[in-house]
Every structure is written in C-alpha cells, then in structure tokens.
C-alpha cells in the first residue's frame, strides 16, 4: 500500500483521553501564541512560515530504519533551534493541523494527542537540551549542529513516550505497556538518529548562509561569547 498514516489514527486511544489531550493542546498552543509575540518580528514571522513548510516537506520523506520499518522527521528540535521554543512548537502544530485537515493524516479525534507528543513534548525536550548544550558547545556551525543532533534524538524518543503515556491512559487494546514502551523507544531512537542527521545538516547550512536567522545563535544564552558562523 501507499504511504498513509504517519501519526496516531482515530480509535487507538479512547475518546475521553483524546478529548483531554485536545484541551491540553489547545491551552498550551494558546500559551505559545502569547509567548511567541515577543519573538515574532518582521524577520522571524516569514522564517517561521518557511520552517513549517520545510518540516511538512521533510515529514513526507520516510527513511528505512529497520527491515520493513521506516520513520520520518518530527521536527521539534529543528524548529526550536531555528525559531525558538514558542514559535517552534507552533510551527510543528501548524504542520500537524494541515496534515490532519487537508491530507487525512493523523486522526481528527487524535489531533490533540499528536500535537501534544510532537509539537509540545518534542519542542520542549528539544529546547531544554539545546539550551543546556549551547552553554557548553561553541556557537559555531559545528557546535549548533551537534546540539541539534543530540536534541533531535532525545526529543523524538520523548515524543514516542508521550504516546505510551496516552495509550496507558486510554488504550483500546489489551497489550503489554512495557512491550509497547520498549518497542516505541527502540525504533524511535533509530528514527531520532535519522532525524538528527537531517536536522543538524539543515541547521549547519542555515548557520553558514544566514547565521543571523538562527534563533539559537541570537537568543540563547551561553557561557562564553564565540564568534558566530566561523566554521569549526
């Protein structure tokens, strides 16, 4: 069959739990919009549109991680590095909403679940790691690329465990939670490595071309001031 579902479909998690996460996602996104205004200026707003469009494109590119199993980029860490945590989460959420409403990918009932895992958890985990790593690593193309790689791997695994939590709360089948958690963590570590390579390459390219457009270089605090954009 052709490529169909890439995100949580309807029916996998029951209606009540899906509704709870729809509310959680809506409140969190509203909070992100409020906080994002401080970051969104005439330069960042179109850049954020491009980041969302780029994530949409790369999410279509499933790569093989095991025989018969593929994965695709989620984009949380990439978005956070390029446009910051609040706008980054909104970028991923925009992609998920477009995919759900126009491309029938990811159930409408499950939209809150998918936004919580990939946009909120993914961006939060990615942001925390990048913020910490960039206090140690140099603010060069290589330093930001390494931070993006590590943050991508972790954020994808965290997002996958978000699903495990939701399944534990409202899964509609009787399956061992431990088995699901292990299977999700294992395969998503591999997917995270693939995502990390794509995201790090993308970020390193932008740092070399337009370092001034990389949020992590402009706004994240670091211990030592390093020259920006000097290839290490």
């Amino acid at each position: 069959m052709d490529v169909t579902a890439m995100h949580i479909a309807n029916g996998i998690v029951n209606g009540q739990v899906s509704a709870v996460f729809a509310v959680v996602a809506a409140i969190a996104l509203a909070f992100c919009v409020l906080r994002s205004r401080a970051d969104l200026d005439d330069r960042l707003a179109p850049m954020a549109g491009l980041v969302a469009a780029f994530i949409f494109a790369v999410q279509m590119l499933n790569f093989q991680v095991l025989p018969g199993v593929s994965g695709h980029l989620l984009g949380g860490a990439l978005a956070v590095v390029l446009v910051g945590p609040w706008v980054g989460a909104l970028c991923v959420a925009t992609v998920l909403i477009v995919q759900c409403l126009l491309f029938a990918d990811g159930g409408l009932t499950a939209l809150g679940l998918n936004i919580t895992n990939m946009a909120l958890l993914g961006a939060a985990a990615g942001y925390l790691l990048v913020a910490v790593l960039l206090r140690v690593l140099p603010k060069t193309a290589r330093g930001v690329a390494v931070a993006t790689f590590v943050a991508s791997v972790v954020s994808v695994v965290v997002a996958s465990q978000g699903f495990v939590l939701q399944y534990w709360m409202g899964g509609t089948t009787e399956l061992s939670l431990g088995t699901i958690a292990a299977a999700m963590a294992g395969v998503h570590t591999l997917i995270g490595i693939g995502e990390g390579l794509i995201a790090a390459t993308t970020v390193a390219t932008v740092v070399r071309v337009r370092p001034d457009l990389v949020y992590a270089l402009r706004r994240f605090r670091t211990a030592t001031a390093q020259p920006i954009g000097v290839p290490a």
Partner: protein
Amino acid sequence: MNRRLGWFLAGGLLVAMLLAGVVSSFASSSPDGLDDTARAGCTFGPDDEITGGTCMLQQEREHQLGDSPLADYGIRGIGNEHLSTGLSGILGVMLTFAIGGGLFWLVRRRPAEGTGDREREGAGPA
C-alpha cells in the same frame, strides 16, 4: 523584510518543494515506527489484511476527512502515483507556508503603531 531575506525564503521554499515534490517519490513505503508498533501482535495476509492476533491497528477508525481531495498525500483524479504524490506535496508546502506564515505574520510584534508599516508593504509572506 529586506531583499536578502526574500531570497533566502525563496531558496528555502524551492528546496522544500523539491523535497516534497520529487524526493518524496523515493521515500520508504514501509510502516513507520508508530505504525509498526501498532501492527505488532497481529498477523497479516497477502493484501495486508489482519488475519489474526491482537494489535492496536484493529481498533483504528477511519479518518473523518478520509475522502478529502488531498487525502493520503495524493490528488484525487491523478492516476500516476509519483505525479499525484509530488503535486500534493508541493501544494502542501505552499499551503503550510501560506497558512503558517500568514498566522505568524498576523500575531507578530509590530513596530510602534502608525509608523513604518507602509515602508514594509509587500513584506507579507503570502
């Protein structure tokens, strides 16, 4: 928004459209990590139908918008799979940029009211 940013955005969008429009035809069609986990525990027949066991996939319900014209990354009515996937991808990139960029543009922090806005006309992302 200056011209250099405009060139960067145009270049980025071109790359995204190439990825979604052309490279997407070479993407793996295997189930992704989540899908594979959802299939674990079931056995499948030659047409990918469930033949036994217990797995999450059995509980999957149809998408409410499953017959939208772009459903499953294709354009309804276009028979050629590569063309259908590629065009839907390009359309998706443009729509995501227009919707996302448009909303971000609307909520952006503006310079002091009444000043400078005219100078920036045409700077909208759409």
